[in-house]
């Protein structure tokens, strides 16, 4: 049913664009209300029928994906939830995609956070992604939730020498000494990869400066779009790659879907969010092209008339 909707709306949009192209080849300008209508219709149909586009990962995202792919099984991966509900739509999908990727490869997961609101979102990930999709994952052996700790960069300063100085227990109050995942882990330096997900302070930048650089731990930040340009300069020396905004998240989700059959039907909120955006972008770009074709056509005609 929805498929029919998708086809009909795509047909209408692209057919309409073609008609307008022909119209403007006669050198006439399109009324702006037609443009409005196209933008509205394309966005609305993408929302209603869940139109998604397969994203091909840009190199900067692909580096992260491949890094996880190439880690030996049972590597230790830490994900830090450094965001709040306001930033959630952009970056929570990244955290979820990381969790899926890490567990499907059989890595060990350590979840923590530097933002107080991050803890609830961590629980959400565990309850709605981790437990239903990986029923065999055992708490304490495959993943552990350290939870939120106050102290901002101070926390990082401590865990780079010793986790137990900061976290005597996990989020549920179990002593770290009785959690198998911490048998051979002393500090953040024992991690094989760290995914800080966030966009404020403290956030991925602090992870790079306080843990990645001094401890020589690979860092792959997941960032909100507004701060991504500020972190780009750290790539590729201090960050192995990075995910910027909804687009970065969508690319990662797309890579996961492409490479793992089991994720074909999981929720991909970032890809879904990109759908209407991409539709709108394509429509706008189509109009720019149409406008220029019409413009050149009109100019040539004027030139010919002049002769």
């Amino acid at each position, binding site marked *: 049913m929805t498929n029919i909707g998708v086809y009909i709306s795509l047909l209408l949009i692209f057919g309409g664009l073609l008609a307008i192209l022909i119209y403007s080849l006669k050198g006439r300008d399109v009324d*702006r209300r037609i443009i409005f209508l196209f933008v509205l219709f394309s966005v609305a149909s993408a929302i209603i029928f869940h139109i998604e586009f397969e994203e091909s990962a840009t190199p900067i995202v692909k580096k992260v994906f491949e890094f996880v792919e190439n880690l030996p099984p049972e590597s230790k991966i830490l994900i830090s939830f450094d965001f709040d509900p306001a930033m959630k739509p952009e970056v929570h999908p990244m955290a979820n995609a990381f969790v899926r990727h890490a567990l499907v490869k059989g890595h060990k997961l350590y979840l923590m956070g530097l933002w107080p609101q991050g803890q609830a979102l961590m629980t959400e990930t565990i309850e709605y992604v981790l437990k239903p999709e990986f029923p065999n994952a055992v708490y304490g052996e495959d993943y552990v939730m350290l939870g939120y700790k106050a*102290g901002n960069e*101070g*926390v990082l*300063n*401590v865990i*780079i*020498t*010793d986790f137990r*100085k900061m976290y005597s227990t996990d989020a549920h109050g179990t002593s770290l000494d009785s959690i198998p995942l911490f048998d051979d882990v002393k500090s953040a330096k024992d991690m094989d990869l760290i995914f800080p997900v966030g966009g404020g302070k403290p956030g991925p930048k602090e992870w790079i400066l306080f843990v990645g650089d*001094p401890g020589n731990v690979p860092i792959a930040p997941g960032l909100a779009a507004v701060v991504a340009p500020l972190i780009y300069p750290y790539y590729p020396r201090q960050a192995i790659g990075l995910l910027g905004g909804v687009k970065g998240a969508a690319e990662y989700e797309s890579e996961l879907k492409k490479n793992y059959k089991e994720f074909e039907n999981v929720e991909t909120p970032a890809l879904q969010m990109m759908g209407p955006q991409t539709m709108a972008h394509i429509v706008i770009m189509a109009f720019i092209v149409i406008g220029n074709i019409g413009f050149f056509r009109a100019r040539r005609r004027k030139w010919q008339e002049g002769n």
Partner: protein
Amino acid sequence: MIFGKSLYCSFIIIACFFTVATAQNEAVATVDSVGQILPQPPGNIIVADHKYDNGGIIDIAWDRSPDDPLGIDGYNIYRACGDGDFEIVAFVLPGGMESYSFIDDKVERGESYRYKISVISSGGESFSESSVSVRGDWEFFDLDKLNILILGIIVCGSVIGFIFTARAGRKLFIRKISGLEALEEAVGRATEMGRPILFIPGILDMDDVQTLAAITILARVSRIVADYDSKIEMPVSRSLVMTTARETIKNSYLAAGRPDAYYDDMVHYVTDEQFGYVAAVNGIMVRDKPATCLYLGAFFAESLILAETGNYIGAIQIAGTARPGQLPFFVAACDYTLIGEELFAASAYLSGDPKQLGSLKGQDVGKFVAMAAMIIGTLAVTVVSAWQFKFFGWLSDLMYSMFSTN
């Protein structure tokens, strides 16, 4: 063989070192009543009055506790005013550094303070010696800002210098700014068509320099409007801007010799709410169909909403703002755009007054200084970093300190 021997020797030396080190540790370690080992206190506490402040800040620095690398919880900072008791003022997490510092900005000017640092670990808390007493003093002049003062004097001096040059009667050349040249024509067009001119001074209040620039331009524009006997309409989103704009337009009409043609409602207040204001201005545009729209001042997301509606009604549009984020939309949708600096220069340009034009020439000197500094500074630091050419070291240091803002 020799290699083996030296390896052996170094082993012995390291072993000795360790023995001595642990022995020393044992000698100092104190045991508290419960039987746990107390950490060793931090040492070398240095307190000093913070420089170039209002007297309310004291800087504290200390060397880490020898136990710091072995794992501690952190440091407590205690403060005593005069001869009073020590009170805890802050807690600092360990960071693996050799020494720590803390800025206490909660002291009273003129009072003397002593500080004590304690280290906390699982073994307990142990205290350092009390520091010497330091008074929070103020300084009359902020030496950290000396470079800014010098640069400010250079720029302001050249502006004032050229004002005087112009006053002395020397003719100064100023190039044409097309957006401003078009202004008079735009007003003329509105007069011909018998439609009003819409003036939007941005959405910020009088405490923004862009609004201030808009008001100085309004003074010129309303003078032209009064001379042409045209009509100006100015909805505003701030009451204070309304009051100021009324004063300005009234005076322009007075100067044009037509005080009777002025009425207060040329400028009217709409609402402080950003998009409420935009909704109303959009309505005014499509209903009154102004022939010319001027958007000068501080704009945010509304820039494109206004400019597209203005375009739709076929108005000539001239915009100007200093916000780089909104300039693209004005450039895309308006006929002329005053980019950044041009907005602030507009009033002087329109005045045609030689003295004010002189100030524009002075501004150019400022740009020249900036460009010269960029070239010299960039070359100096490049040479120093790429070829370790020490000779230019002083130059790159000078450029860095000249443009540092702490």
